[in-house]
């Protein structure tokens, strides 16, 4: 807490300096006031993050759950029952045909997340094992920066890659020309693949960190018992780092749930309750972008639905982040 850093008066017959530079006595001095003021200012800076969280919650709640009487919030217009059980999401239609069932958006989101998890998590984990167990220091020296580049590429670029390269050059030839399925120009598969690409560096670097923090004594005891390198990495290091790996998986999944632009470009068309990866889908994030970049009437149900969707998104990612934070902090306690 601020204000707890008072200068203790050490002794009464210390140097009685009155020029305000340093006083060992508890007496009024500008230096002391300045120190306190600075501490309070810094405390306010730190408190701003709490304020951000509170204002996110406030904004989402007032628009979706409860609004002061002259206005009505989303859930005062659409029942919770409809929101969670209705299978159609059609806010773009005329008033009487509008349905607000979040199920199609949630399926869309989890379809993308699922595809990205199938691609991103194993590859990321394998890269982490390679970097922490197999790679020579020189190889690690240039693989890590390249992974950082991969992580730093803006998501619109991945979206462009998906819709201009993956879909026409990879997905259409394989699934439509070869296997004879119907592929939409915007499909969940392309979006899922690029989101998977996006989470690879994240999984790799987080998992590598936890694997490297597994104490060497564990590896050495493995070798002493006659294990091969594969035994040590797959049966000792990975299980020992499992909780950290799990946390990195959760963080990556929460990132792919919240991923917006790549999905909006590559996959998002209309809300579609389907698990077909070759069809158009709509995710929670891309619905928000879709509506906000178009014309939206201020105060309409459509606008309020954005906040309701954002609230669901916020809660899901928040829970996943909290769990992974908890797992990571417990993991740190075990090995450090």
């Amino acid at each position: 807490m601020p204000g707890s850093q008072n200068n203790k008066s050490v002794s009464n017959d210390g140097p009685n300096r009155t020029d305000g530079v340093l006083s060992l006595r508890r007496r009024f001095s500008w230096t002391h006031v300045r120190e306190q003021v600075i501490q309070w200012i810094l405390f306010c800076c730190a408190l701003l993050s709490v304020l951000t969280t509170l204002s996110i919650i406030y904004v989402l709640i007032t628009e979706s759950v409860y609004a002061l009487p002259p206005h009505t919030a989303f859930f005062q217009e659409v029942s919770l029952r409809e929101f969670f059980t209705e299978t159609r999401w059609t806010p773009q239609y005329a008033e009487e045909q509008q349905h607000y069932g979040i199920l199609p958006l949630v399926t869309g989101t989890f379809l993308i997340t699922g595809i990205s998890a199938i691609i991103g998590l194993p590859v990321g984990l394998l890269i982490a094992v390679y970097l922490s167990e197999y790679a020579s220091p020189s190889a690690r020296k240039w693989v890590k920066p390249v992974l950082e580049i991969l992580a730093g590429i803006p998501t619109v670029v991945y979206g462009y890659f998906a819709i201009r390269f993956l879909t026409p050059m990879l997905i259409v030839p394989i699934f439509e020309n070869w296997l004879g399925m119907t592929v939409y120009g915007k499909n969940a598969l392309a979006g899922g693949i690029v989101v998977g690409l996006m989470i690879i560096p994240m999984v790799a670097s987080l998992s590598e960190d936890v694997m490297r923090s597994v104490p060497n004594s564990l590896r050495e005891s493995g070798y002493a018992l006659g294990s091969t390198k594969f035994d040590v990495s797959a049966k000792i290091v990975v299980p020992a780092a499992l909780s950290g790996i799990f946390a990195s998986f959760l963080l990556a999944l929460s990132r792919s749930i919240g991923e917006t632009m790549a999905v909006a470009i590559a996959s998002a068309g209309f809300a579609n309750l389907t698990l077909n990866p070759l069809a158009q889908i709509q995710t929670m994030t891309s619905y928000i972008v879709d509506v906000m970049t178009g014309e939206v009437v201020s105060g309409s149900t459509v606008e309020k639905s954005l906040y309701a969707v954002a609230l669901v998104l916020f809660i899901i990612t928040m829970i996943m982040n909290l769990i992974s934070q908890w797992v990571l902090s417990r993991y740190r306690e075990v090995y450090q």
Partner: protein
Amino acid sequence: MKLGDDNYERRLIWRHRIGQCFEWLCRLATMGALAMLVVLMGSIFSSALSPGRGSGLAPVSLTDTGKNLDTQGDLTYTVSKIIGGDFYFTSDPEEKIKSFSGTDVRGGKVVFNHNGKRAAPVFDLSVSDLSGGKEPIGKFKEVGPGRIPSECPVPHVHPPKPAKPWGWLTWNFLTNGNSDDPLQAGIMAGFWGSVWLIGLTSLMVVPIGVGAALYLEEYAKPTMLTKFIQLNIANLAGVPSIVYGILGFTVFSRMFGAFDKQVTVISMKFLQFLGAKPIDITLPLGPVVLSGACTLALLSLPVVIITSQEALRSIPASLRHAAYALGATKWQTIWHQVLPASLPGILTGVILSLSRAIGEAAPIAVIGVAAHLSFAPGRITGISDLIQNPDKLIRAPFDRFTALPTLVYSWVNEAAPNFEHVAAAGIIVLLATLLMMNGTAILIRQRFQQWNRW
């Protein structure tokens, strides 16, 4: 050890093989990820450098001069000689054009496809009457850019805009504003919008982020409140950027809908001696640079705090103890010793997280930024313009804007052909900007590392 036990040896060999396979699998995964990066970059560059074939643009258009529109259907145009470049109809991209009749001319225009040769298309075209057939009405000779034959009776031939050696990433692209025509569309407005965003965001996020990190690392006792703030920051770092967009839209752009119409709150008149009009600041802010910068500041704040904390944590305690021993107060120690020592780490973290934030299209698109702008924030056109009207510098944060990633997003989503090449060129500018920022971060890290005294 059972020598001579075949089973045991076979098991050993298999274990070895499995290990080898696993190692190669790991290598393959790494190589695959790196190869993906190469493919990604390759697809972008090849698209930006390709001149845009088969999409109906880079057109040759015949524009009617106003004479004899009715008789156009009776005319046959014969390409008598192609001197440079080939041309195809948009309707049938496979067939080379040798001749076309007036019925292909719609609204005085016929659109060809340019096959992608870099040279400016030059060709001879004779126009003949259907009835006469043999008698050419006029003849176009070696029509090149800007060389429209003076004696042509019916249409003018506008040769396609020549594809430049640098493909779509041309000087025009860098200096033009956005446009509906892919040949004219440029990135200038987006680039300056992003520059303003970077500047304003870092002005806000650096003092607040470093301040918060200082409090948490240097002052805070491990109380429940500190733990809560710490957890909260870690969580905020994982909140999807679109949620920050919604927050920025509601709080900064729309201001909770508290204002029914635009209300002028401040009217700055102090620059009037320069002949400037008073600068009115109206609320709600709307989709202006300032609301975008505030949104990005909130978005990047948690990451800046976390990286600054790490930088502060790497400063050895002996440095602080030495300063205290010399009688420095806490703040004197921080200001004169800890901050300068941790500056490279902090700056690197700040720049890296800012470059992440600048690449985010979602929050900027959500606060209501229009992509179809053709001016830089504040309508600043150049340095001379800025010297004449310094008030534009204050106007700019309150002006509408567009940013690099939002422009790219709008181009990628554009249905009109050839915008994919424009988008690719835009992506290269965006990546170059980010690369410049990251390069600065590396430079700072190397330059300041010499200062470290331990």
